[in-house]
């Protein structure tokens, strides 16, 4: 059913990674993604794969959940690989008809494929091990410094968490309105693009009306419960660093340094090929 779709796809488990402070996970993911662009050789990528494998192992999230995330970018991945493989000029390795695969192209294709896969798996690991709530909390805290520049950090975080709460409700509502209009003979499935777009009106108008009504109700309910923005607010679940978080930061630092070092090694991307 529609309402069972979860955004961000949190995977419930008891693990060290789940327990980490969201700030560590957000910061860690960010650093990890940046390091992916340092590497120019197999040692670097090997290091990244090793690091990711270790974190996945610790997170207790089954590997197949990461692969699921990959499916959505499979098409993009293939295009990237093919383009790089065939359109990079350089020393040809294989030639058939007008297409030639070059040594440089192969290296580029492999490193792009690796980079993209590692990026997607790495960042999905963050959403799989952190509840959406924790995630917004972490971001609010990390972006706190932006308040000096009058960026409404608290408000943005609150908006995100309300959106997350209402997505399943609105999904269910969409399903219901769709059925109600189908009972009046509406057809959402056949016809050309324009006909289909027009058929969406009886669905979208009630959905918007409902969303506005809910927003209005919610605003009133929040005011009734003394909500007045982030100022003077306390937290039921304040973020606090534990020993494990400092340890994680230390390991991350070590990983980044190692990455920089690996990135500077003058080694080829692939062991095989023209020496």
């Amino acid at each position, binding site marked *: 059913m529609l309402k069972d779709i979860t955004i961000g796809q949190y995977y419930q488990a008891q693990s060290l990674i789940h327990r980490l402070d969201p700030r560590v996970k957000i910061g860690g993911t960010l650093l990890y993604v940046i390091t992916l662009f340092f590497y120019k050789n197999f040692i670097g990528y090997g290091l990244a794969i090793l690091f990711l494998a270790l974190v996945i192992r610790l997170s207790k999230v089954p590997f197949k959940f990461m692969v699921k995330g990959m499916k959505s970018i499979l098409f993009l991945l293939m295009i990237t690989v093919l383009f790089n493989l065939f359109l990079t000029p350089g020393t040809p390795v294989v030639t058939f008809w007008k297409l030639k695969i070059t040594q440089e192209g192969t290296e580029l294709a492999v490193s792009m494929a690796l980079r993209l896969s590692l990026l997607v798996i790495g960042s999905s690991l963050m959403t799989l091990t952190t*509840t959406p709530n924790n995630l917004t909390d972490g971001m609010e805290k990390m972006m706190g410094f932006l308040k000096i520049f009058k960026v409404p950090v608290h408000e943005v975080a609150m908006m995100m*968490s309300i959106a997350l*709460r209402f997505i399943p409700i609105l999904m269910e509502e969409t399903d219901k309105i769709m059925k109600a209009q189908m009972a009046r003979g509406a057809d959402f499935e056949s016809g050309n693009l324009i006909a289909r777009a027009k058929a969406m009106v009886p669905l979208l108008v009630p959905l918007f009306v409902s969303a506005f009504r809910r927003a209005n109700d919610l605003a009133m*309910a929040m005011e009734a*419960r003394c909500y*007045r923005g982030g100022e003077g607010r306390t937290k*039921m*679940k304040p973020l606090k660093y534990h020993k494990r978080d400092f340890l994680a930061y230390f390991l991350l630092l070590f990983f980044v340094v190692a990455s920089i070092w690996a990135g500077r090694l003058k080694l080829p991307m692939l062991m095989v090929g023209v020496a």
Partner: protein
Amino acid sequence: MSIVRTENLVHEYERRDEEGNIEGVTTAVDHVSLDVKEGSFIAILGHNGSGKSTLAKHINAILSPKEGTVWVDGLDTAKEENLWEVRQRAGMVFQNPDNQIIGQVVEEDVGFGPENMGVPTKEIWERVEESLRAVGMYEYRKYSPNKLSGGQKQRVSIAGVLAMHPKVIVFDEPTAMLDPGGRKEVIRAARGLNQVEGVTIILITHYMEEIVHADQVFVMDHGKIAMQGTPREIFSQMERLKDLRLDVPQVTLLAYELQQAGVPLPDGILTRKELVDALISPRIDSLP
């Protein structure tokens, strides 16, 4: 002691045409004066559009009086500096169970009010626990609100208000969207708060069965208080209630019909037990 008092309260809505010009004015609340005693259970009845919800929103300072005054626990709701104090002392539970839960986890939603008030973290946890226990939802504290029934969601909303330690809770048609089971859960929770915690309850509804236990009932019509009294006094005026587009519980109606047919029954019978006792009593041994 009075906890909520209104004096000549007036609220008007402006009707506007398509260009935004004022077409006319609808008076939703028309010179209402009422006095609610601390610790009592009050019911406000009225058909849709009678002004009862508008009145409720004044008690929580969501609306501000156009004319007249509203005092909550001695505080004038029209004064800007009293705003947050009023909202803390007079909590409000709304009709739609989905549109008033903010948190994605039950306990976080209950903690929302105290967080806004700046209550220290440790105390928030204590308040959340005691509030959830008071409405019997403590076992569900880790649940997502989306997994709860309508009645359970409303009880979470009640806990969310209770955690702010209010003196009075206004229920604005809390049962209108629920099934009979859910309705009972909510009314039971409200009565429990009234009797155990001593919280003043103002219940707005159009389900007559729910007001049988109220200390005092106000019936609203066209923005005015049309009737007021104990449930028994209200329910004994069957014809008047029909004029006000309201109905009475089936038991009361049956008693009234029997009375009309000549059976000597007391006025305003409210419960099944009262009716049965009255019919069995030795005074009625033969039909007149």
